[in-house]
């Protein structure tokens, strides 16, 4: 089955991600910023789908858009928003900003000019049907040790958070 309008979807999702990323830093209201961030994360999930990685896309939606961002909103809603809206939003560092923007633009131009030589002409067709299995084999086969260490690290982080939040346990 041929992919449906691949190029169009790629540009659409990229534009969505970039524009909502810009909105995250432009909006004065932190709740609006958080919502724009959710949109950016969803666009990113769509880009993963286009790379034939449905498992990564699904995990991205569950963890980031459905889990972490809810906690973000949770915290933001408890903060006094009126006060944060009166605060200075930009630090007027326009000279540094201009330099960074120019460097980034140069990088984009270079990638566009040299890109054809760097990237293969035709992308390798990845097996969409076995994506989940491939991820599982990598995580629990090749990188088993790193995976388990990471879970241990998270456990330590949870205990640390509890110790810091509660004086008496």
């Amino acid at each position, binding site marked *: 089955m041929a992919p449906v309008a691949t190029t169009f979807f790629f540009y659409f999702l990229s534009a969505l991600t970039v524009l909502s990323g810009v909105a995250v830093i432009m909006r004065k209201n932190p709740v609006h910023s958080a919502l724009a961030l959710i949109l950016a994360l969803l666009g990113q999930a769509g880009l993963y789908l286009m790379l034939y990685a449905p498992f990564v896309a*699904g995990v991205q939606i*569950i963890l980031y*858009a*459905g889990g972490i961002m809810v906690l973000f909103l949770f915290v933001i809603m408890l903060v006094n928003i009126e006060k944060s809206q009166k605060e200075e939003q930009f630090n007027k560092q326009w000279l540094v900003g201009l330099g960074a923007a120019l460097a980034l633009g140069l990088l984009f131009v270079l990638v566009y000019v040299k890109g054809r030589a760097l990237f293969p002409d035709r992308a390798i067709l990845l097996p969409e049907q076995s994506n*989940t299995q491939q991820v599982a084999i990598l995580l629990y086969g090749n990188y088993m040790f790193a995976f388990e260490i990471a879970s241990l690290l998270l456990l330590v982080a949870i205990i640390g958070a509890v110790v810091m939040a509660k004086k008496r346990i």
Partner: protein
Amino acid sequence: MLDYITSYLKSDTTPGQAGNLLWAFIYIVLIFLGLSVAVIAMNWLERKILAHMQVRLGPMRVGPHGLLQPIADALKLLIKEDIMPAEADPFVFWMAPLIVVITAFTVFIVVPFGPAHAVTDMNIGVLFMLGVSSLSVLGVVMAGWASNSHYPLMGALRSSAQMVSYEIAMGLAVISAVLMTSLNREGVGTLSMIGIVQAQQAQHVWFIFKFFPLGLIAFFIFAVAMVAETNRAPFDLPEAESELTAGFHTEYSGFRWSLFFLAEYSAMIAVSSIAVTLWLGGWMRPFPNALSGETWDRVFSLIPGLSFLFLAAMTFYSTARMPKHSYFRVQTIGLAGFGVVLALIGLVLFLPPVRDRIQDIFWFSAKVATSMYMYIWYRGTFPRYRFDQLMTVGWKVLLPMGIGVLILTAIAGVLL
């Protein structure tokens, strides 16, 4: 054109896999209509069943036995004034009900009503359903915050905390069922909704009875978590009337409120269909092993039609019992007409081509309907939990149970 339309009818995969856009669209429209009818029916049934549990009559005025009550309610909601609070955040206030409705309906893309009766079959089916339905909490939070009022904010905070904590127990229960799908010769499981039911078919057992009682415990965890996920009684703290008026949708009225209502019921149907797919054998008929063979297949294939004929008979019985006063004449005729429609549907279901095609859809819907009845039953039976009790049940009971069941399932899968 005609070839394009008919070419799908011979295939035995879903339209999404066959790449047939037209039939995918037809399926989407059918599911949408079916869901809307189901929500209307659920509205009437819930009020009626709750009323009978509490020895009341329930709606009786609009139509015979209140049958037209949901339609009257819908009309009332549509023509009601739509109020937006002056201090509300207009864009977020406008987006919140849309997000809740869109997420509640999108998950039905992968719900398998039969081996070929789904819009599409995704490699990550269960993950997709859990992920998209986890987005609905965003709509709830947005609604509560955008209303710029205390009760909705409290309701939204409660419900987001509740939904995020119960998602974890739910996910663990789902993983233990997915683990059971990998017990085949290749040792490769699947997340696809159709694949999960086919795994149950191949192993000749519903996963609720697999490794007894492990499957049963996993199903129990999911059944509790799904009630909490959909904010229904006894876990309906976000909309606890006595404390928070109506929770996160206090400030919503008219059409926007009805969108929340629609989303709540279709989310209930969605999580019930996950439970049915994962543990109750999806579209398979009851007793595929004990009562197998040609004769039993024939007998079970008659049940859809017979059940509709039974409903029609009950309707005619009620028609005969209507008061004989001339004031009730229109209602009596209407009830008799309803019975005739039910009987006609029942007779159509006996036609061999329809009978073979409708089988799986009927059994799936019947299982989901049982689960929906349980929802009403819970609401009529259990008192509401306190918030700290709710968190204790989620984190200290269901989560350890889920981890235990997961580990035991893995051990049992290796040993047995």
